[in-house]
């Protein structure tokens, strides 16, 4: 087992190294000069060259790369071009906000998806099964951003139940700790719902199809022959085995969830990484963009690694 983990870990590390190079060169090689933004030749003709010099953009690309790499190894991600703050500080604010959004969405997707899939298999080929299939298929086709707008339209602008944007109330400063927790949770409802509803179908369909395949296996027939109840067979025998592909598919689906968080953060003015990334893309804030892309990739690689390890824990055959 340990060998397996170490092997996976190193291949992840290798992938990370490649990603570093890829993101750096892709961002730097694309046309457009960040120093040219807000450049006014009438006011200060040499401001552009001064900025380029300060940011090291006048150096050859490989020099820039090695400078950035050595900074990274020392934990220094550079400074933002836009506001000259250390990139690490900007990221430190944004990362928890994104996780606050994606982790509940992921959990909701897994739990609700599993439950739906279970209901479908218990009522296999009956109305509930077909109905849930149809609903999840439709949900799967809905763009997350449109769903978010529809939810905002109904729940915040028409019925005024949930706030339509921002992470905290105006009265945040005067709130007690529990009020703050409540406020934050209340504001999480719409973004988390719009993120996880669309991907609910992915999990539930996997569970349903996995379970349906399981139910045809001989060990299930054996359990039936032993006279076990159908419920017990589903929960104790089939579900355990059907959960393994769910771990894998959740790992594979994680990048898509991160992607959808970008649009959701924009719609709900949620100050997370996705929003940060879009805003800095517009501003050509290279250090922030590179750091964001890299960090998201790290999340994805860690997610895949975790999924691999969990799968191996659940199914010993994979470790071989």
């Amino acid at each position, binding site marked *: 087992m340990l060998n397996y983990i170490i092997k996976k870990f190193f291949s992840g590390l290798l992938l990370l190294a490649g990603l570093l190079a890829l993101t750096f060169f892709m961002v730097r090689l694309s046309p457009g000069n960040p120093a040219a933004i807000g450049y006014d030749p009438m006011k200060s003709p040499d401001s552009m060259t001064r900025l380029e010099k300060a940011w090291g953009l006048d150096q050859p690309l490989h020099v820039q790369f090695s400078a950035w790499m050595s900074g990274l190894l020392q934990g220094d991600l550079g400074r933002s071009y836009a506001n000259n703050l250390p990139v690490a500080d900007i990221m430190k604010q944004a990362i928890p906000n994104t996780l606050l959004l994606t982790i509940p969405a992921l959990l909701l997707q897994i739990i609700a998806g599993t439950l739906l899939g279970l209901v479908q298999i218990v009522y296999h080929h009956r109305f509930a099964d077909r109905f849930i299939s149809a609903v999840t298929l439709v949900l799967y*086709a809905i763009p997350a951003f449109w769903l978010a707008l529809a939810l905002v339209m109904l729940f915040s602008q028409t019925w005024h139940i949930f706030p339509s944007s921002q992470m905290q109330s105006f009265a945040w400063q005067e709130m007690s700790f529990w009020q703050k927790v409540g406020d934050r949770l209340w504001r999480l409802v719409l973004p988390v719902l719009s993120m996880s509803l669309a991907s609910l179908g992915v999990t539930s369909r996997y569970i349903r199809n996995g379970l349906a395949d399981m139910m045809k296996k001989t060990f299930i027939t054996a359990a039936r022959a032993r006279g076990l109840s159908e419920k017990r067979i589903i929960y104790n025998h089939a579900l355990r085995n059907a959960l393994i592909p769910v771990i894998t598919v959740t790992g594979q689906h994680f990048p898509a969830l991160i992607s959808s968080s970008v649009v959701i953060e924009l719609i709900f003015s949620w100050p997370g990484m996705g929003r940060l990334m879009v805003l800095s893309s517009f501003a050509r804030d290279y250090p922030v963009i590179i750091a964001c892309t890299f960090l*998201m990739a790290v999340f994805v690689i860690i997610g895949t690694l975790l999924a691999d390890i969990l799968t191996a824990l659940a199914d010993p055959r994979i470790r071989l």
Partner: protein
Amino acid sequence: MTGWKNKIVIVAIFLLALIIISVLVAPLFARLDPVNHSLDETWQKPSLKHWFGTDKFGRDVFARVLYGGRISFLIAMLAMLLSLFIGIPYGLLSGYLGKKTDALLSWFINLFMAIPQFLLILTIIAILDKNSVTWVIIVIALFSWMDVARLVRNQTLTLKERDFILAAQVTGLSSLRILVRHILPNLVGSLVVLATLMLANIILIESALSFIGLGIQPPTPSWGNIINDGRQALVGCWWISIFPGLAIIFTVLCIHIIGEHIQEKNVSRY
């Protein structure tokens, strides 16, 4: 059960055909103009004259949705074809050559797949600062070919060991001929399924891009940017955002249903 399912597939095919045809023939109707604005008719509710209502400039939302569909389909089709064009040779090479070449090529696939696809597309388009249709197609295809390559690679890897390929090798056929004439035809079934799913996926990606303001730029309509247009008046004028959204949902849903159907047919053949 099967009859019930077949009926749904037929409805999906019919609906998708209807959407595609109406999108194609839209320019034949002079009354449907996506950019013509009339300030007497701003924020109009859906009516017989304006089926989907009008927006803040008095433009007909129905016409905009139809013309937006033209752009969305065009981008989705071309980007899909382009990624097939990149992914198929890549996967064939990787799977057929095997060994170290395969290890290296697969590593690159993993590399591209480690960064969330939408994020990558979004960043590159934002940095390139080129929002033309051509660039959107190129960038989307550049980050969508990995699925094709992986599928082709995996299947080539197993096909390669089959007897008929061995026979072809023994006969002395060139590798290129084996790949094109003997391996590729066996991949068509699964490639068709993947291609349909990609079509749906690219429609979703493009609409999200245009929604953010990075893809197709106004006044050229696209399903994504019409939805964005309607954001400022969600409650009073729901029709601007809702109708293009429904267009996306119905299109993607039909494509999914049809793709799933082809997949089931594929599986049952073996």
